[in-house]
């Protein structure tokens, strides 16, 4: 099953975005979908919207002042169903540097009559680095290699005290373009495990640098949601892996020749 939620969002300002959600997947799978029930934040009215228009890939358009988690209940023609989740991401137009504030709510959404052209994704540049205290030295090397590629490294240890950590880390993760986790122990830090789980939930490209004897399944992540590399790769291989992680087709990091 390849179905997932795709989003487009345009800044309409001030502090207001228009967005469209639709299903993405193989044509044959989309053809098997009978209806999508979009479950929006409760501040939307209505917050539950049924769409059965296959031609728009069950698109739903709306607008609002902040990001939130979207869920979609997908009803298949054979009577089975599945649930998809997606974190709606909104960015200010200036180089997509700042994510939208998490603010209330919404303009009533409406099923869309035709699919607009897809918007280009901003080039990935921010790398979230997650590690336990035992991997501080290696984290410093990853940071150096990432910065040599022009990436900005986001480290939860840089968060100010006094913030609700889980929320602040989630915001930092949302802001990132890719995530690296250092997994040198079969008993990873609970913070590392939580950050990796959130990265997967947010569908961030995720690279686990793991020790020779460490199984990534220690973290309980679904297979296919991450890639791995040996934690002790040399700088050249690490830079190559990070470049691969940070780049999307058609975009390049500043200072790289990809």
């Amino acid at each position, binding site marked *: 099953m390849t179905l997932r939620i795709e989003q487009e969002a345009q800044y309409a300002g001030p502090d207001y975005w228009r967005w469209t959600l639709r299903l993405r997947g193989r044509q044959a799978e989309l053809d098997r979908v009978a209806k999508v029930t979009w479950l929006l934040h409760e501040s939307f009215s209505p917050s539950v919207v049924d769409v059965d228009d296959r031609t728009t890939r069950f698109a739903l358009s709306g607008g609002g002042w902040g990001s939130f988690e979207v869920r979609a209940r997908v009803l298949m023609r054979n009577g089975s169903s599945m649930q998809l989740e997606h974190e709606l991401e909104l960015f200010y137009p200036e180089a997509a540097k700042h994510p939208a504030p998490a603010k209330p709510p919404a303009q009533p959404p409406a099923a869309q009559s035709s699919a607009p052209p897809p918007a280009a994704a901003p080039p990935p540049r921010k790398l979230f680095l997650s590690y*336990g205290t035992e991997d501080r030295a290696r984290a410093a090397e990853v940071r150096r290699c990432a910065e040599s590629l022009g990436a900005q490294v986001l480290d939860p*240890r840089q968060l100010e*005290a006094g913030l609700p950590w889980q929320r602040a880390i989630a915001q930092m993760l949302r802001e990132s373009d890719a995530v690296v986790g250092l997994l040198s122990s079969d008993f990873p830090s609970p913070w590392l495990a939580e950050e990796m789980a959130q990265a997967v939930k947010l569908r961030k490209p995720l690279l686990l640098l793991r020790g020779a004897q460490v199984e990534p399944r220690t973290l309980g992540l679904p297979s296919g949601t991450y890639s791995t590399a040996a934690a002790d790769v040399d700088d050249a291989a690490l830079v190559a892996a990070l470049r691969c992680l940070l780049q999307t087709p058609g975009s390049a990091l500043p200072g790289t020749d990809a």
Partner: protein
Amino acid sequence: MQQVFLSYTFNPHPDHEADTAALRRRVGMVIESMDLREVTGEDLGGGGLTPEIRARIEAADSLVALLTPHNVAGGVKMAPPFVSDEFAYAKARGKPAIRIVHAELAGSGMYAADEHIPYAPASTADTLIKLMRTLALWKRQQGRPTQVEIAAGGVELPFDPGQGHRCDYQLFADFKEGDWLPATIWREPGAMYAFLKGVPDQSKLRLRMMLNGAIWQSDFQNPIGRVHLIKRTP
């Protein structure tokens, strides 16, 4: 309680480089295993009790100081002076703080008579267990970080710290009202939340928001879910 400032020497005596690094690593792992975050001054490059270090200690909820042999000219071993300064600063600010003292430094320096955890490189298990018990006690005393939703009878409160607005909370436990403490306001779609750094079990909570002279305050209630603010007349 969320954050522990870990104070240690960046310049260990050559005889103790390996055991100092191992202790620092294990203590960091204990802190994380207790679901706490470790903060250090490592990225600040060491040095004295700079304003940046002071700010980090003040922002942290507690401090653990590793007093292991520090290297000085001539190969003399001594307690790391910056670590002692950071420990003293945390104590002066009323923070829970504990020292882990290397066997070769036992009984020296300021606060030598204070409670501490002895450390010998050959037997670290006892040291780490005592540290875990200390952290567990601090967590119980300081309480857990808590987030409550703010309701104001359908009124959207225009909270803006830039306008001088502030939000504080007060706890009631053991038949005593505590001091008013600052809360951090956090917005989510559809609601406003207050983040409280520490709420011990069995405490009651009340919340106060001050907006340009207007005071919105709740009654004491359980510190979970939604807190209802009512506009008060000064």
